[in-house]
């Protein structure tokens, strides 16, 4: 279904959804930083910049309770969190790189174990994607086979038009349902052309070649020279729309507490640290190697997909300037 919606009507749509009790999550300013979060009204929406954290947190929160315990005398009572109670959500203004990573995450969260926390939020969320008209030299979606207009992962996709408003295309039943319930806010396409899309990178990585090199070079001196500068923080993984590692911790007192699930990252020294004290990834280059291997080899081996959508966040925010696009480009030329 191809339609048109004006900026004014898009805001009217969001306000109506909010008034109806729907949770509308979109980029907005949070203490000076653009982040996704629930809107209280459409005025707060910020659509002109890529949010600092990716959209994955709408499905995979940086921290969530999964269980709680309480001890009364000798009796211990456990209460599970029931995902059935998660709210219906419309996620708005998701950039193509963020949206494309969501189906990539589906694979891992519904593989051997069905993660109901992720899947229930996924079922209850309608994703409204938004094409990019701006890019910087850290963006590289085009290099990994996506593009600033790619609707992968979006239920409904908006493309900004010359002279204002958006072309709106639906791709799933969820997207159609959202449009049909608010049909009068949408108009027939008015023939105006789309704003020029961003062109982030002219290079197209040969991902097959990259994988072929990785297949044979688990041990290679290149890892040392690439990762000698890595300081082992979690910035890259935490900002990444596709990274999905988590840690489970019990927090509380002996009387009562919660079991919590929070983001983890393979760059941390503790990630593979064994209780015995042994650490198979004892030096940072081995940890960084895992990042590249997981994204461009292991995930492909298992799910036939690449665990990177080229958003460039890890490049912009790496404290020591490690540039994954430069690294993959170099590997593809080996």
């Amino acid at each position, binding site marked *: 279904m191809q339609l048109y919606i004006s900026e004014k009507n898009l805001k009217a749509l969001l306000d109506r959804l909010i008034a109806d009790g729907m949770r509308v999550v979109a980029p907005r300013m*949070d203490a000076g930083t653009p982040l996704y979060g629930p809107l209280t009204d459409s005025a707060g929406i910020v659509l002109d910049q890529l949010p600092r954290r990716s959209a994955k947190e709408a499905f995979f929160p940086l921290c969530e309770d999964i269980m709680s315990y309480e001890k009364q005398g000798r009796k211990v009572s456990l209460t599970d969190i029931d995902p059935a109670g998660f709210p219906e959500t419309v996620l708005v203004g998701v950039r193509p790189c963020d949206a494309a990573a969501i189906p990539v995450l589906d694979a891992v969260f519904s593989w051997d174990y069905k993660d109901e926390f992720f899947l229930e939020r996924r079922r209850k969320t309608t994703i409204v994607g938004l094409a990019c008209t701006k890019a910087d030299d850290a963006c590289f979606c085009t290099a990994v086979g996506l593009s600033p207009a790619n609707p992968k992962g979006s239920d409904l996709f908006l493309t900004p038009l010359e002279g204002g408003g958006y072309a709106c295309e639906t791709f799933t039943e969820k997207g159609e349902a959202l449009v049909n319930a608010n049909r009068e806010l949408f108009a027939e396409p008015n023939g105006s052309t789309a704003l020029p899309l961003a062109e982030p990178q002219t290079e197209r990585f040969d991902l097959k070649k990259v994988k072929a090199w990785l297949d044979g070079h688990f041990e290679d001196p290149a890892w*040392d020279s690439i990762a000698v500068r890595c*300081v082992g*923080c979690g910035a890259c993984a935490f900002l990444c729309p596709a990274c999905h590692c988590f840690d489970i911790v019990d927090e509380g007192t002996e009387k009562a507490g919660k079991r919590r699930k929070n983001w983890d990252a393979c760059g941390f020294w503790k990630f593979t640290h064994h209780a015995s004290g042994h650490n198979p990834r004892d030096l940072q280059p081995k940890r960084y190697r895992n990042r590249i291997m997981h994204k461009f080899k292991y995930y492909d081996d298992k799910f036939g997909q690449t665990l990177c959508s080229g958003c460039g966040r890890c490049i912009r*925010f790496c*404290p020591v*300037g490690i*540039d994954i696009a430069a690294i993959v480009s170099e590997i593809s030329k080996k």
Partner: protein
Amino acid sequence: MHDNPIDTSIYAAVTEAIQGEARRILSEGHVAAVVGYAAARRKGSAQPVVVTRADDAGKLIFSAACVNNLAVYLTKARKEIPKSGKIGIVVKGCDLKALVGLMGESQLKREELYLIGVPCAGVLASTIQPDTALTAGTIAPKCRECDAHLPTGCDFVPARQPVTPELEKHYSAEIARLEAMTPAERWAYWKGQFKKCIKCYACRQVCPFCFCEQCLCDRNKPQMVETTPRPAGNFAWHIVRAMHLAGRCAGCAECERVCPMDIPLNLLNRKMAKELKELYDYEAGFEVREKGPLATYDEKDDQSFIK
């Protein structure tokens, strides 16, 4: 004016001098490696590099994008840097203060280092877009109140004089603004900032002084600080971080620069530095001191707050 350019014309000559000196000390065998900066793919960008061969000395640069405090590579990441022999390192004045602090804490020995000091007019506040001109608006807040444009006590410093215009101070103004608030307002301000924290620990990992093998905040037996990035755990983490760096922080502001959530972390450290200066007349500087202000005492210390 915010877009007034800062003169960085000496950086080309500084780059050349660093390259020449690195080439010399590597080829003459004075050092096993030089830790410095090299250009990277993105236009205008720079990243830390370890050069071990004289032939590679030409990779070294200095520019307004050379923001990192490389001292961190001499403590935490030490295992990854070749160990044998002396290490050469490129340092700005602020970085040198950190190295001096680390020597005071017996983490480093002066005789194992070859210090290449940089006459520095300032660096960028952020390298999210490295291809940015250095101006009164884009310069790092720490550089606005820097007293260390010319490092002293190094083995080599290119003979250049940086031009450093007087700029409005940032941290002192922010500290004063916060001090003037009521406790409830301050609490609300920090709560809003800390809430954003994702516990990526970039701030900790880049800090030269956070060299503990295992951080208190990673321990779970006993768990003093919640490891989850919830508002409560975040608040505790930031209080512990500020306290553990009190009297040690050299003010390089790396923590604040790298925070992907824009939390003004160095404000806390600088507030502590200000208090310790007032209380015990201690300040980070170029002179190695055996004990920081919280590692020593004076019988006559102020105790007006104790009943």
